[in-house]
């Protein structure tokens, strides 16, 4: 599936290197996210800029990834393309996650 991770200060940035997060890769994505975030900062930003499509299974995997972080850590999303943003908006998951237009926007925002 392909995730890479860097940490800047108090924020871990995880970049998705796949053009899709869909049913075919949802389980792998969830496992990879668990491995990447099993220890780390309280705030994780998932960079979705390269993701051109997501379905409800992919959405579920991102929700599961946030649950894995527990109540004291936070998952924010950066750079969603219009189709990705649409799936979040239609399901009202845009009220659950903070979506930032760009990674820079996410990094200049505070954790809360």
């Amino acid at each position, binding site marked *: 599936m392909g995730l890479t991770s860097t940490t800047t200060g108090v924020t871990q940035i995880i970049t998705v290197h796949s053009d899709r997060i869909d049913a075919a890769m949802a389980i792998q994505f969830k496992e990879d996210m668990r491995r990447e975030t099993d220890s780390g900062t309280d705030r994780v930003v998932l960079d979705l800029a390269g993701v051109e499509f997501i379905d409800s299974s992919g959405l579920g995997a991102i929700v599961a990834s946030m649950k894995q972080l527990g109540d004291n850590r936070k998952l924010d999303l950066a750079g969603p393309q219009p189709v990705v943003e649409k799936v979040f908006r*239609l*399901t009202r998951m845009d*009220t*659950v996650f903070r979506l930032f237009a760009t990674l820079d926007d996410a990094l200049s925002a505070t954790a809360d």
Partner: protein
Amino acid sequence: MNPISNKTCLELSFPATETEASAGIEQLSTGLSDQGLPVKKSDEVKIALAEAINNVVEHAYAGIAPAKVQVTCRLDRDRLDILISDTGNPLPGLHPPDGAPASVDTTLQDLPEGGFGWYLIHELTSDIRYERRKGCNRLSLRFDFAELS
């Protein structure tokens, strides 16, 4: 400037596995855009198409050997009709679920990780029809885009 003068047809058949479905959805979406599906509708069509095809893979062929998913798209000037057929198990009650959305007004650990598929299909289509005929499921999705032309 409308490139569509007559109905255009696009057909694709693939084995009902997650990997094949993923590639098939991509191929259909690209093909529809190439044939003149309005850009403003392409994301919505792709989302609904993906959910409907994933339902076949995950539910119609659950517990039985997966056969094929057959998708036929007819694109007209002001609408798109997509027929998805398979030889899997029928929809429960022989009709498409209402697709009430899972609530997100809940605690973190209770957030839904699924149950959005039919809701998205209902939200994004103009009409949904289902029939079970001769051992086949036939799901028809219609997308009107008259308001765009």
